């Protein structure tokens, strides 16, 4: 399977092409964001409704990781 190289929180990783950013993050860490009261959160609805998988992608904040396919050279930052 073709791999793409992405950067998650400064760590360079090779992941299969065609997977979502959420799936890429989940291969390395269990959570994606910290809630307003500090709880760790991860994707819940899986289809872009709940916004629990929000991360920063290529400098743009609040992107839903479950709806974004990985792209070569992508920079992802999680806060949880």
């Amino acid at each position, binding site marked *: 399977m073709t791999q793409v190289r992405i950067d998650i929180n400064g760590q360079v990783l090779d*992941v299969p092409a065609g997977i979502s950013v959420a799936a890429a993050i989940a291969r390395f860490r269990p*959570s994606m964001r910290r809630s307003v009261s500090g709880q*760790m959160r991860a994707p819940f*609805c899986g289809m872009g*409704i709940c916004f629990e998988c929000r991360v920063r992608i290529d400098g743009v904040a*609040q992107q839903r990781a479950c709806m974004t396919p990985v792209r070569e050279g992508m920079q992802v930052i999680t806060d949880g």
Partner: protein
Amino acid sequence: MAERYDIVIVGAGPGGLAAAQAALAQNARVAWLDAQATAGGQVWRKDFQHGWPQRAERVITKVLSHPNMTWMPQTQVIAAEQNELLLQNERQALRIAYGALILATGARELLLPFPGWTLPGVTGAGGLQALAKQGWPLDGRRVVIAGSGPLLFAAAVTAKRHGARVLGIYEQANQTAVHAFARKLWRWPGKALQAAALRSQLAGIPYHYGSIVTRALGERALECIEVDGPRGMQRIECEQLAIGYGLVPNVELAHMLGCAMTQEGAHPCVQVDASQRTNIANVYAAGELCGIGGRDCAWVEGRIAGIAASGGTIGAALLQQQRHARKFAIALRKHFKLDPYIHDLAEPDTLICRCEDVPLQALKDYDEARSAKLATRCGMGACQGRVCGTALAELGLFPRSGQRPPLFPARLATLGEFASSSDTEGSIS
């Protein structure tokens, strides 16, 4: 200047796909948009390893390559005005105008609060399916599937296919209700075949009736769950819990457009006539947002809407198919009716609003969503009440409140586009 299309279709599941195919066959110029990166919707979501289901792939490929088709992936409707939509995709905001609009926005899962439901590792049932198809790591992981309805079988099959150890399916409905439903399935041969195919792929996975997940436990992520069932309370260790209590129509866009609604239990759905017309001129709706009816129902209604919106004639056979498909929905609702026990699982400190971390106890002094929102921020976060508002309606606490633009969190540049034109061209509908 807004690009104009004869027909704009919102939603790329079976309903939107059938509508697109039918409209293209009538020579209409079609724009077709979806929030996801690939067509197929939830039920025909493309699997990164296995592709689309065969039937879906054939039609999707044909529709997408049609010269009259403009496909707009990763695009959401932010606001609507007279015969125009304001859209936002990954890069920009854009406006498009339509002769007719077909809403095929489908459904989301009914996700209900219980202690521990915010832990990483707890997802919807269809939610886990969607995640797995996009590469969510399940290989060797212990997965429990729970909640209610036939979707649980499909979720279990997808999880297994992606290497999960599915420990069991826990259905809240009792054995008598599920068996009564199964006995009726012969009336919908397509559904019966689907069920038989799923069952054969689930050999060896135990199916439990009358069982309710009451709690999820874990330090930083899910470690175990508690299930209350005919054999009393038991604890099950697992890394993933996929739990969904059926589906709820996505009516936010229809609501904002002013479409008349009916209630299906605690949740609104769009009212349509036999040609899938809503009460708003040139606006049609097809599939789950008109009431949960499943894939086949969405397909038939999409076809009807596509033909009607592009000025074609709808055959009697198609209308007959639609009525038959809708009867399935009634059977489904009756037999998988939720046990009231599920409405009482949340404890005073269980978070109801996951965006703003508002616990149940903070909501007890309010009797409608708007005052609760103003005082507690419940429903004010990024999901705009799609999860908590729906749950609170199901729990019988507050009815769902209306929808105002922006329909989804929007960039300032997008809203700027909206404000500038509405100042000069008319009011927000």
